[in-house]
């Protein structure tokens, strides 16, 4: 853990830190990542492969998983929301290091005693489509030209 912003309930963690270690450090402060499962991987690998075990974002629209990030190519400062053009997290989350490597990340943490809202929604995820595959390839070409 690099830094804890307890007021904002955000933790700044290195990409190389293991999720379980981060969770143990947070537990000392009465905080948790509140994952449904705890994958045995680093924070970076976890986000790059789709954040297994994180609650679906559809369950609580006002909340989110990642507030800021530093990657090998760009940084996004921590903020609850922004409207400053395309969300560059689309080049990071679940993108399997196609574009960037995660150096550090600002993650949402939760008080162990807090209630987490749940708003039901059928979150059947569709597989990646051919359109999406083609566009990801085009972005890769543009990104590394």
């Amino acid at each position, binding site marked *: 853990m690099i830094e804890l*912003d307890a*007021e*904002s309930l*955000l933790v700044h963690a290195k990409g190389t830190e293991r999720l379980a270690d981060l969770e143990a450090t947070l537990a000392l402060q009465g905080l948790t990542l509140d994952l449904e499962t705890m994958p045995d991987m680093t924070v970076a690998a976890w*986000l790059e492969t*789709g*954040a297994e075990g*994180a609650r679906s*974002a*559809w369950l*609580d*629209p*006002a*909340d989110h998983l990642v*507030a800021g990030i530093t*990657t090998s*190519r*760009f*940084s*996004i400062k*921590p*903020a*609850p*929301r*922004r*409207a*400053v*053009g*395309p*969300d*560059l*997290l*689309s*080049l*990071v*989350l*679940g*993108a399997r290091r196609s*574009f960037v490597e995660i150096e550090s990340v600002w993650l*949402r943490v939760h*008080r162990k005693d*807090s*209630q987490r*809202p749940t*708003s039901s929604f*059928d979150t059947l*995820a*569709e597989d*990646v*489509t051919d*359109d*999406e595959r083609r*566009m*990801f390839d*085009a*972005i890769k*070409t*543009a*990104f590394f*030209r």
Partner: protein
Amino acid sequence: MEELRGFVVSSDPADLAFYSRDLWPRHHMAVRSGNVATHPPRAVVWPRTTDEVARLVRFAIQHEIALVPFGAGSGVCAGVLPTPRTLVVDLKRLSAIREIDKAKRTVTVEAGAMGLPFEESLEREGLTLGHFPSSILCSTVGGWIAARSAGQASGRYGKIEDMVVALECVTGRGEVMRFVHRPHGPSLVPAIIGSEGTLAIVTAAKLRLHRAPTVRGFASWSMPSMKDGWEAMREMFQSGLRPAVLRLYDPFDSVLARSGKARKRSAHAPGRGTAALRALLKRPQAIGELLDSRAANVALGGALLVAIFDGQDESVWDEVARARAIAERNGKYEGEGPARKWLIHRYSVSYRQAPLFAQGLFVDTMEVAATWSRLGALYDAVRRAIGKRAFVMAHMSHAYPDGCCIYFSFAGVAAPGKGAWDDECEARYDAIWKDALAAALEAGGTIAHHHGVGRSKAPRLGDELGAGGLEAQRALKRAFDPHGILNPGALQP
């Protein structure tokens, strides 16, 4: 242009004048000084199908003409600024609700659907999108997506990016593509949302729906200070409460909120108080200092916090009780009245800037966001920066567990000088924005929360994203729009 035969198209001067701008306040000042349409497009086209949009894009590629997607024109950041080599693509004829899936609670709607009629269609089915921007009377679904819009009930339903399940769009390559939102990736939907028409023209969206609320709880409190107010907001969100609406007004803004705000007035004739108002606004710092005084705070009734909880059953009242327990540690309960009044007048503001411009003033709003730990510094810094040259007030209207948006409203007049009144107004307006954006960045805030960047904030985009972030945005542009035909100039520092 012959090749556009079969399209609904116009080059009528009245249409070209209308489509030469959006609601950026600097445009209003230009109009006031007689420059009604300094950026007319070549023509306006109203496509009726996604296929027509794709044909238009291919036409534009072939003829090296730019396209500017247009919803209802309510953007406030100069997202629309055509040239004689631009076609404005008004999507309002592409506005059908294609499907409402009541079982899965989704709707597929075309981009040109106007906000309020669309929401009313859902409510007739017992459903809601939960997106109520104050511009709902003059904005479209496509515009919401393009600008990364926020509605007044974002506390429960999120911003527009939290509602999009999938997008159909036409890229700058002329290809119709469908992208699916997977919140933890991989997904290109977050790249399209907020791209302000620079990557693709959104033609339809599949959106997540909720059951329309059948129970609604109201509460409001006067708070001794803004800090007391936002601390209560923070605690509510961090303890798991999700009020649909939670808004904190500073003492002066509270007076307007309590009174129900903007009454209908004529937009054409400056009122009798014009001279007095102009004189008053020549000394914005003095007004600010006066209103910041303890006596003024007491006289104005302190800050006002209003909350509305949506739900389906009596549990709403438990949520109100929990909110009251938090807010009344430092605040005084004011009953349901101010919250109910706010709901009645919630769309009153956006439409009614015209009388102030007619009186020779300028008014504008600035929405920034920060984590809770930086919120106080952001509030102070931006208020100070704007307050040097204009009267400024603020409210906080979109809260999250990790931070909040601050919405500044300001009004000013020309600085004393030798230039023409409107020129001096423009100079002062530009100086305010320059200082305010610098202050927001310096304090660790974002330069925009839900209005977008357009051209007005683009000069500071590099400070927000850094060189690497700008290059990543350029790479997306090269991939989606290799010919550079989609809204060129927007989002470009």
